């Protein structure tokens, strides 16, 4: 026989004794430590090499002086004395290096690739933030949004050249109005809170048109989103809280008792931040209308009821829809969100400009110049152009690819998944509103029952070690140590089961007082951060330690 005498003799791995020394580099195999770019870069490296400044353009050729200089005047101040080229920077040119780190191109690529591996997102794993709807973002949306006819258009192009883009806005508007059972929609608001402001400004305009501008109170239940009172205050209203009932819903009796001639309206989040549907919505709306006010609904949680409930049937006058939650593209895909606002018949005359209208087969933009003919009551304009075209394209793609039946299934599955988590864990964690009936699209737990000294944040940090982004913590405020989990409909049962097992394990450790949980995360690139020190002594700018080293020598 012939033997390959390389010295390699394949064997089974030996058992790990556990005594593994830390690596010299700090790297953990494929997980690489990465320093700040300021620490690895220097002033002598660069990935891009520019040619030296253009050759001397000396006085000898007379190019240094402005041609219109009067005879006998001083040379142009930006001309260097020796005529080494003409600078156009005047006295703004740099006098000292600015200390930007330089790296070669492969070093630069590695730096950002390594950093990107420390990131976590929905394309990597389950992201159960409550009230944020981190659902899968279908790639079809992205493909459509990148079509040149949508991505390369300019908002100031003649409308004849962007009929397709305007039709997308118009068709999406039709879907939103139909799904909500409302009368009209303002497409331009850029995100949820911007939409809230749009709705409240329309309510204010409607009240002023009726001569009832003296109504200065907006009622906001405790179970509403935190942006609601902020919006009302920003629009010049005084905010009054309405308490929640023990089961986590609006105290309808307290709300009705507070109604009167000074109340402009109410802002209600439905489904609310406790993850519950406000069953009394119709009764509340009728009471508010009878008292002369308007009803604003925070529709950020519309994804739990889309295709099942039409807010228009509940007497709502205005509601924003987060395209970037309900119709995928979570967090605006890291870019802009979009918060169209649907209006009732009563508020439609006051909706903002501009909007798209189909006039005899031609899509036109109704703006200030043309609104006077049939939309003179508009409260004005909130944005320079039409809104977030990229988000419109993605949302309409999502809607058309799901269809009406698909959208209905989306909300059913979102609610089913949340209830699966709620009922799987309510034997381990306290679910304060568990007895209130099925939840909507998010499950809410409290920190009741944890060992002394343990809090929700310890569970959240433990979940990082388990490979999950933590859920929303300490919100809503009505629940102590709240944990708000929103699984969305795009997670499989296997993914939910794995998360449930992880959360149960971490929660049991918190209940048992496992001290190792207080120092979690242990497997993340960084352990638990000292937020107090970071706030008391923030280090906002990287400083070169070299001068210190020199001083020490």
């Amino acid at each position, binding site marked *: 026989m012939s033997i390959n005498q390389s010295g390699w003799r394949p064997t089974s791995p030996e058992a790990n004794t556990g005594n593994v020394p830390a690596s010299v580099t700090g790297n953990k195999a494929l997980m690489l430590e990465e320093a700040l770019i300021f620490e690895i870069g220097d002033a002598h490296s660069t990935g891009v090499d520019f040619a030296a400044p253009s050759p001397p353009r000396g006085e000898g050729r007379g190019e240094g002086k402005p041609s219109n200089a009067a005879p006998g005047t001083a040379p142009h101040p930006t001309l260097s004395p020796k005529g080494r080229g003409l600078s156009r920077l005047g006295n703004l040119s740099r006098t000292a290096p600015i200390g930007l780190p330089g790296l070669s191109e492969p070093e630069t690529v590695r730096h950002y690739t390594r950093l990107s591996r420390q990131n976590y997102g929905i394309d990597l794993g389950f992201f159960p933030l409550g009230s944020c709807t981190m659902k899968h973002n279908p790639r079809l949306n992205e493909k459509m949004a990148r079509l040149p006819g949508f991505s390369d258009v300019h908002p100031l192009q003649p409308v004849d050249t962007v009929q397709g883009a305007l039709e997308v806005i118009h068709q999406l508007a039709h879907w939103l109005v139909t799904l909500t059972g409302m009368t009209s929609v303002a497409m331009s608001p850029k995100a949820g809170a911007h939409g809230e402001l749009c709705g409240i400004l329309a309510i204010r305009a409607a009240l002023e048109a009726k001569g009832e501008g003296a109504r200065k109170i907006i009622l906001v239940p405790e179970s509403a989103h935190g942006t609601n009172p902020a919006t009302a205050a920003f629009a010049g209203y005084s905010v009054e809280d309405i308490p929640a009932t023990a089961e986590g819903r609006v105290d309808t009796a307290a709300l009705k008792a507070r109604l009167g001639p000074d109340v402009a309206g109410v802002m209600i989040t439905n489904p609310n931040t406790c993850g519950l549907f406000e069953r009394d919505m119709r009764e509340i709306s009728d009471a508010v209308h009878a008292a002369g006010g308007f009803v604003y609904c925070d529709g950020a949680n519309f994804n739990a009821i889309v295709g099942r409930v039409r807010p228009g049937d509940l007497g709502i006058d205005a509601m924003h829809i987060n395209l970037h939650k309900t119709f995928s593209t979570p967090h605006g895909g890291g870019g802009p969100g979009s918060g169209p606002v649907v209006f009732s018949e009563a508020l439609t005359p006051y909706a903002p400009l501009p909007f798209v209208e189909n006039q005899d087969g031609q899509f036109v933009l109704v703006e200030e110049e043309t609104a006077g003919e049939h939309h003179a009551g508009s409260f004005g304009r909130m944005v320079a152009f039409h809104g977030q075209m990229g988000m419109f394209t993605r949302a309409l793609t999502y809607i058309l690819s799901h269809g009406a039946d698909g959208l209905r299934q989306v909300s059913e599955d979102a609610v089913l998944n949340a209830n699966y988590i709620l009922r799987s864990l309510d034997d381990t964690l306290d679910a304060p509103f568990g007895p209130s009936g099925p939840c909507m699209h998010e499950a809410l737990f409290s920190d009741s029952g944890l060992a002394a000294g343990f809090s929700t944040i310890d569970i959240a940090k433990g979940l990082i070690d388990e490979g999950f982004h933590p859920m929303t913590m300490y919100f809503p405020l009505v629940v102590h140590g709240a944990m708000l989990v929103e699984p969305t409909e795009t997670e499989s049962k296997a993914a939910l089961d794995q998360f449930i097992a992880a959360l149960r394990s971490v929660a049991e450790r918190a209940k048992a007082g496992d001290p190792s949980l207080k120092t979690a995360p242990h497997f993340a690139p960084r352990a638990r951060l000292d937020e107090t020190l970071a*706030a008391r002594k923030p280090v906002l700018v990287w400083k070169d330690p070299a001068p210190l080293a020199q001083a020490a020598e």
Partner: protein
Amino acid sequence: MSRYFTQDHEWVDVDGDIGTVGISEYAQSQLGDVVFVDVPEAGKTLSKGDEAAVVESVKAASDVYSPVSGTVNEGNAALTDDSSLVNSDAEAAGWFFKLTLSDPSELDSLMDEAAYAAFVEGL
């Protein structure tokens, strides 16, 4: 010298017509580590319930209301350098400001130490 408490967790020590104001031990325990305190400047006139100071923890920024009306004599400069005094000694060295009371009768509506302890117990 007597100490009074508000339902918003401020305390005021009154010595003659001079009041020293801070936030309660319970309040600091709820805030967590305090990272910044903004105290009023001398000469500022406050009405009972006015926003007088700001205390910021990692968790949130909170307004501190004046428990009584009066004119500010001084803010506690020590808090500017070391806001952790609010955590370590909320009801003594971590005081926020001193003021000259303009209406001592307002004290009647405040709680004494026992009443405040009972109030906190019920929260």
